[in-house]
């Protein structure tokens, strides 16, 4: 089963993603980006990774919750500590999910 609007959205994602890959080697030849834009691009990964996860961890239900009742924040803190000590991504991922599972099974 494929819904038309979902397929169109997937194709749109594919087109813009291909453009990001294709642009530098083909259209710009590697020389055409201003140094100001390069400095912006350099910080996009950190900015977007943070923007993606911060609201999930700090406001999982649409309002800010900094308390021991927020299982997302606790599991996130555990995953962040694992990542900080240079554990492989798999350990960070597994540790975070295990913490989440444990918190849920204790009814938090």
């Amino acid at each position, binding site marked *: *089963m494929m819904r038309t609007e979902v397929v169109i959205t997937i194709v749109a994602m594919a087109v*813009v993603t291909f453009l990001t890959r294709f642009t530098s080697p083909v259209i710009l030849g*590697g020389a055409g980006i201003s140094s100001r834009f390069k400095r912006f691009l350099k910080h996009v990964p950190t900015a977007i990774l*943070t923007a993606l996860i911060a609201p999930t961890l700090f406001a999982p239900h649409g309002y800010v919750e900094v308390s021991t009742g927020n299982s997302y924040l606790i599991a996130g803190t555990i995953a962040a500590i694992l*990542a900080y000590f240079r554990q492989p991504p798999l350990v960070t991922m597994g540790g975070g999910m295990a913490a989440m599972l444990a918190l849920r099974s204790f009814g938090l």
Partner: protein
Amino acid sequence: MKAKEFVEGLKDTLPIMVGVFPFGLAYGIVAQSIGLSSGETLLMSLLVFAGAAQFISLPMFAEGAGMIMIAITALLVNLRHLLMGMSLAPYMKGLSLPHKALLTFGMADETYAVTISRAQANGYSSAYHLGSNAAGYVTWVVSTTGGILLGSCIHDPLSWGLDFAMPATFLALLIPRLTGKINILVCLAAAVVSIMAAVAIPGKWYIIIACLAAATAGGIMEGAENDEN
């Protein structure tokens, strides 16, 4: 087409892709749980071939976000390819346009890293590049398929903690980046802006707003620092 170099590219990339396999599984399982069909889930891996952008689209699909918002977010997440492409561009100069198109389609964090390392150490080979891309692409499609199959067995992924797979994955990518004052300030700015925007503005606009604001602030801080030196 040099078969030996193609195989070398495959061999050098596969060990790294072992770490990507669980992400592909998780993507397949979570996509099913938010209501994408198996065909749609697989189609996205086949056409988009970009783990982070695919993962991020899932909660947006679940919320019924529009095509424009999902596409803009995918564009922002994948802007890093521009930088990767710039460093590969000088090596790819002599290739034909269709050849360039084929090779750039397979550019991902892992295949890029393997290809550029080899180019810098032993010279660039388009056959090696293609081998590396093929290893990355096949791993991603196979692991997605595995996730789709697993997803049909797991009826309540929430109780498995799977909704936490995405934040945990992104934390694993984010934390090692936080070296130096500017990177930490960019992270803090993105956190504050995204949380405020998520609470105040309906939908997923907070991703785009916080990304643009924090990356611009980072670029300005870095520019100012360069002027001082």
